[in-house]
């Protein structure tokens, strides 16, 4: 294991409007090569957290102490005290980001979309002219072959199905030679078959290439199946951080109350309203989360 973790978030808060905090004092640490699920109901802060790690959004200023309210990725500072570092593009080049809506450029070919993964690594003028070399294009084809859609390389990205577009987006992160993949609800817009395909691809990349993967999900089934570790969020706070095996059905009901129905699809739930008990468990789990982050 490296001295510095792949991702380290230290006491990050974010409020979009005055009274409600989207992220509240979040700290976590993810080691190199881990595959971590980030679960929580919609609006719990999963996307916001991932977007902060990639430096797409800046956190609250917090304190003036630069060791607090900061995010480091691969030992490089992404942001601290509400300011994104100027050299964030270099860090972003090492992070592959996968979006719920794929975020490919629909009018460009799949191959060009995948070649965009080179932009952070080749000279800026060559990128601006879209002058990718033959060798680079072949590497992109190899990545497309690996995710199983090499035959679609010449098509416009908008003509692909959702699952195919998401695999093209994964190919883009492969071309990027990303050391970390952040996937923001990658399967939320996909049918079950495509979802399995995408999760399997991510898991394979993690296993074979040793790439750290953080994937936000709102279905616990996928988290327990593919990710050894799960971080559960609730109302902008980390409610649980530990082994995915511990996420039993009852535990989730306790943790999320009526929200748990969203997380455990396909199972009929009748959560008993136990506000006191739920709150206690929540407190306990938050404590556990903090100790985990400190380790």
């Amino acid at each position, binding site marked *: 294991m490296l001295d510095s973790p792949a991702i380290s978030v230290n006491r990050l808060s974010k409020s979009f409007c005055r009274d409600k905090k989207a992220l509240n004092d979040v700290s976590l640490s993810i080691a190199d090569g881990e595959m971590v699920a980030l679960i929580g109901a919609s609006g719990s802060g999963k996307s916001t957290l991932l977007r902060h790690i990639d430096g797409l959004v800046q956190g609250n200023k917090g304190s003036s102490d630069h060791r607090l309210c900061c995010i480091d990725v691969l030992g490089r500072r992404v942001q601290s005290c509400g300011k994104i570092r100027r050299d964030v593009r270099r860090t*972003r080049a090492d992070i*592959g980001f996968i979006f719920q*809506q794929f975020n490919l450029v629909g*009018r460009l070919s799949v191959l060009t979309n995948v070649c965009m993964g080179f*932009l952070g690594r080749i000279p800026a003028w060559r*990128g601006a002219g879209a002058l990718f070399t033959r060798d680079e294009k072949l590497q992109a084809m190899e990545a497309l072959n690996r995710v199983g859609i090499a035959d679609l390389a010449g098509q416009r990205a908008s003509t692909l199905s959702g699952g195919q577009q998401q695999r093209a987006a994964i190919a*883009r992160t492969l071309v990027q030679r990303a050391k970390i993949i952040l996937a923001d609800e990658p399967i939320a817009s996909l049918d079950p078959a495509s979802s399995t395909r995408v999760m399997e691809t991510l898991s394979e990349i993690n296993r074979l290439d040793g790439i750290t993967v953080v994937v936000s999900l709102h279905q616990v089934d996928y988290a327990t199946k593919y990710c050894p570790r799960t971080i559960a969020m609730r109302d902008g706070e980390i409610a649980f951080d530990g082994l995915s095996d511990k996420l039993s059905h009852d535990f989730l009901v306790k943790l999320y109350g009526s929200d748990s129905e969203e997380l455990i699809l396909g199972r009929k739930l009748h959560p008993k309203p136990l506000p006191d008990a739920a709150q206690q468990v929540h407190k306990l789990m938050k404590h556990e989360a903090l100790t985990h982050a400190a380790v």
Partner: protein
Amino acid sequence: MSTTFTLPQRPFKQSLAYYLGWGALLALLTLSWEGADMRPGELIRDSANMAKFLSGFFPPSFTEWRMYANEMLITVEVAVWGSFLAVVCSIPLGILCAENMVPWWICQPVRRLMDACRAINDMVFAMLFVVAVGLGPFAGVLALWINTMGTLAKLFSEAVEAVDPRPVEGVRATGANWLHEVVFGVIPQVMPLWISYSLYRFEANVRAATVLGIVGAGGIGQSLWENIRGFNYADTAAILIIIIVSVSMIDALSQFLRKKFV
């Protein structure tokens, strides 16, 4: 038994605004009557004179058609170059006018500059450029260039402001810089609209270029003006027919191209 219905009543305030609106329009038209020197009666009273004047146009005289056709060609060429230069300059300027791409202290000054280019009519620019670079089509090209650039930069920037931000963010997430975001994220999205706007402006520029010759900025306008002033209405008619045919052909071609791209 039939049920009785009550018709929906317009609230007093709303109906007052309705009648006031019509009243205001009527007042505006009445007040402008004098100033605009409206004399509709004369159209009927002097209709005999008008008929005589119109009969001068027939039959059109095409004896000089080679010269007129050549001048029409020059007119189109002026429009081609003026439009081309305007489109090329409007690509960066359109991006620099878009609020979602640059900070306000770039966007606002560039926008004001484009407003100025647009506010002054191309005939005015043509007169100024005739003084600056001499009589001839080049002055016309410069005039169309500046005026069209002002319009296209605004239209281009509006298209840029309406792009879907998600693909742009997708490009940004690969570690790309600002220029890469523009090239890969923005331009592919706005391309169909930009082409369509450019072709529209080209059509408008062909029409505008037909009168630039009046101030000495090249093209068929000069012959048109000389024939009108010399009361050669048969030749004037021939020139007008040549203009109508050429402009219609170019409009049809441009419409065909627009459909291909959109």
